[in-house]
């Protein structure tokens, strides 16, 4: 480094991070995004210094929930009418707008102070992999995923299937009927 000033600017610079939400469980993903938005992944963290990073989330329409939660979980929706509020299941809410589920989850995981709205403006959500060019140029690093997406039987090649060792071979008499 030529001078200490340059190093200071580099440590406190704001980075742009990429997150793939495909097959990720939403509550755990939201906690992870909160951590990077606040800046808790940095050793120079302090709540008064605005040291959080930008987070760009792609493939939000392919986010995952636990067994029954797509039907059970309810989100409060403001209709704009007086004395009426709708409780929408996560399924319908996701159909309405595929980015809003993650938005709500991150909003509830962030600390409930005046920083919250400021940090939400640094969250960028996209349902597909289509990202505007302005943001593509800024991306630097990836947030590690919570869960690796599973592979279907179709997606394995026949060579891979042949390389799997067998722990059980069905007997010659076996008929799968009945």
């Amino acid at each position, binding site marked *: 480094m030529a001078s200490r000033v340059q190093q200071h600017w580099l440590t406190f610079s704001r980075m742009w991070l990429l997150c793939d939400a495909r097959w990720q*469980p939403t509550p755990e993903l939201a906690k992870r995004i909160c951590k990077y938005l606040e800046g808790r992944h940095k050793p120079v963290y302090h709540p008064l210094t605005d040291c959080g990073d930008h987070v760009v989330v792609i493939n939000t329409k392919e986010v995952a929930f636990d067994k029954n939660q797509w039907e059970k979980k309810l989100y409060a929706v403001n209709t704009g009418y007086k004395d009426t509020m709708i409780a929408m299941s996560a399924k319908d809410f996701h159909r309405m707008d595929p980015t809003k589920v993650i938005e709500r989850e991150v909003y509830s995981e962030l600390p409930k102070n005046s920083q919250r709205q400021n940090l939400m403006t640094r969250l960028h959500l996209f349902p597909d*992999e289509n990202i505007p060019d302005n943001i593509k140029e800024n991306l630097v690093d990836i947030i590690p995923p919570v869960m690796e997406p599973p592979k279907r039987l179709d997606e394995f090649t026949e060579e891979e299937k042949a390389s799997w060792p067998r722990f059980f071979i069905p007997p*010659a008499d076996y008929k799968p009927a009945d």
Partner: protein
Amino acid sequence: MAAPVLGKIFSLSRSVVSLSCSSVFRRTVFPVVCAVQSRGFREIKETKEGNVTVIEGVLTKPDGKIEELDNRHGACPICSHNLTFTWKDVHILSQFMRPDGKVMPQQVTGVCNTQHRKLFMAIEEAKRAGLFPDQNPTLDDAKAVRASEVPLNRFNDYCPPDWVVMKRMTDVPHPRIPYRKLRRYTKINPKIVRIAARKRGK
């Protein structure tokens, strides 16, 4: 799965940290056994030589390595190899499955009770997640066909890592939340609900 995305998004000038994908087989133990074809499914073949027709059952190769499994003591094939599997391990589950999408019976596989229960639950969870799209129930089983036609998995489902078998089996299926309970917390305008339902196309 972010690796193919990177190729599209990042330009060559930027340096990028690549994800390290852990292997699928990090938990399994591979047995090392010599290969001898002794068992497998048989196909019926008819050959005609003049007046004589020969109908025989010919051994076919299964879709994998053929190993002579030495199981003299009748041990459970999963416990004896110290296997731990979850709903994601398709390479193990597909071996114990019928083309219907059901588990093979315990008498055939020789699997112990706890592992059979775990297989059953894991296969159900994998089917819910959509990992076996080709294995659908036959038309004989009307109940299963009706259940599979209902569009359950509209979006991705996942199962948490430490699941307990007995807890899952006693889970009550979630009822539709009745109107009288919703009114305690929300005031619903039934007109809006009806309009929203019509828009969805019910």
